[in-house]
């Protein structure tokens, strides 16, 4: 399948024009290289690979941004300015529920992608909906946590440690919220556009995004919450 649907000879000419030096060409396995295999001898990779790889690069840069917030929190962990310490504001039970929600949503997201690959609209939608509901529960729990803390006078401006805490955890919460909006858009598009090629690309990217958020949350619940709760 090609993305353009051009006649085969035109397609070959287009590849030659777009990648005249045929960079990074290398074939896998015993058989001859496949057209559009990226590093075969046949020109640039197909769009699905390029889209997925480009989004992977974006996710890695996003994770680098998270690393800056992690570093800020870790450096400022003791800078409480006489205010509450991190150990005093951690509610492990709520963090456990948040973790369960996000992990299960990652699981249902993976199942939805399995259904997508089987071109099954009903199960794709069911699992996407479950993913969205679990993500919503996560955001609700986090919002409740922030409101509880604020009610106790624990706000970002209280101390440097709290600035780092709310910055890091809040940034992740914003990512999950935006991911939820994206998910709702995807559900509508799957419903009305079906599994067109560009929809497959978008669902692949969404899947990557959601799993990457869960990976960041592993770092947060370990470094922010569990290390604080440890004796």
């Amino acid at each position, binding site marked *: *399948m090609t993305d353009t649907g051009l006649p085969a000879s035109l397609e070959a000419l287009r590849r030659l024009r777009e990648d005249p030096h045929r960079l990074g060409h290398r074939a896998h396995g015993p058989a001859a290289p496949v057209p559009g295999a990226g590093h075969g001898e046949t020109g640039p990779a*197909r769009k699905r690979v390029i889209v*997925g790889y480009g989004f992977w690069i974006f996710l890695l840069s996003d994770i680098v941004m998270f690393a800056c917030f*992690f570093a800020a929190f870790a450096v400022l962990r003791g800078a409480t300015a006489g205010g509450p310490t991190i150990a005093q504001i951690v509610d492990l039970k709520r963090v456990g529920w948040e973790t369960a929600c996000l992990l299960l949503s990652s699981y249902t997201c993976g199942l939805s992608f399995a259904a997508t690959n*089987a071109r099954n609209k009903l199960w794709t939608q069911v699992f996407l909906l479950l993913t969205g509901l679990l993500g919503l529960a996560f955001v609700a729990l986090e919002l409740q946590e922030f409101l509880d803390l604020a009610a106790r006078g624990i706000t970002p401006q209280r101390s440097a440690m709290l600035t780092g805490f709310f910055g890091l955890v809040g940034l992740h919460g914003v990512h999950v919220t935006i991911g939820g909006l994206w998910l709702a858009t995807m559900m509508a598009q799957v419903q009305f556009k079906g599994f067109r090629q560009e929809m497959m690309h978008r669902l692949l990217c969404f899947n990557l995004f959601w*799993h990457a958020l869960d*990976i960041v949350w*592993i770092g947060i619940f370990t470094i922010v919450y569990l290390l604080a709760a440890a004796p």
Partner: protein
Amino acid sequence: MSTLEDQPLRRAGDMDDREDHAPGDAPEESAGHWVTNTHLGLGFSVVLTVAAFVLARGGLVWAPAIPVALIVLAIAQMGVHLVFFLHVTTGPDNTNNVLALAFGVMVVFLIVVGSLWIMGHLNHNMMPMDELMRMQR
């Protein structure tokens, strides 16, 4: 001209096991393969998460070892997610993904460890605050 462009009618399937793959993609497209991977990912993640929460309560291992144990569990779980949810493998079709990931991990490591290291030294070498105040008077 490669031989393949002489016979450009030979088409790849939607995903062929001889070409590169984006992360999150896998050569085998049957739904069963994806479902198995997802189940395995959830299973390993639950074990590692529960272990982390139980360890953090203390009492199971020597207390000063808990932070290191927690960080090891977190890194293990990130690996589980990468392999079973994101389908990043060590296969030749994943070389580009793994190289990008390695670079990302290096930058993250430099940022986090470098910040902690430098700021720790600055804190250590800084004149105590009351002395600083006295000098400014």
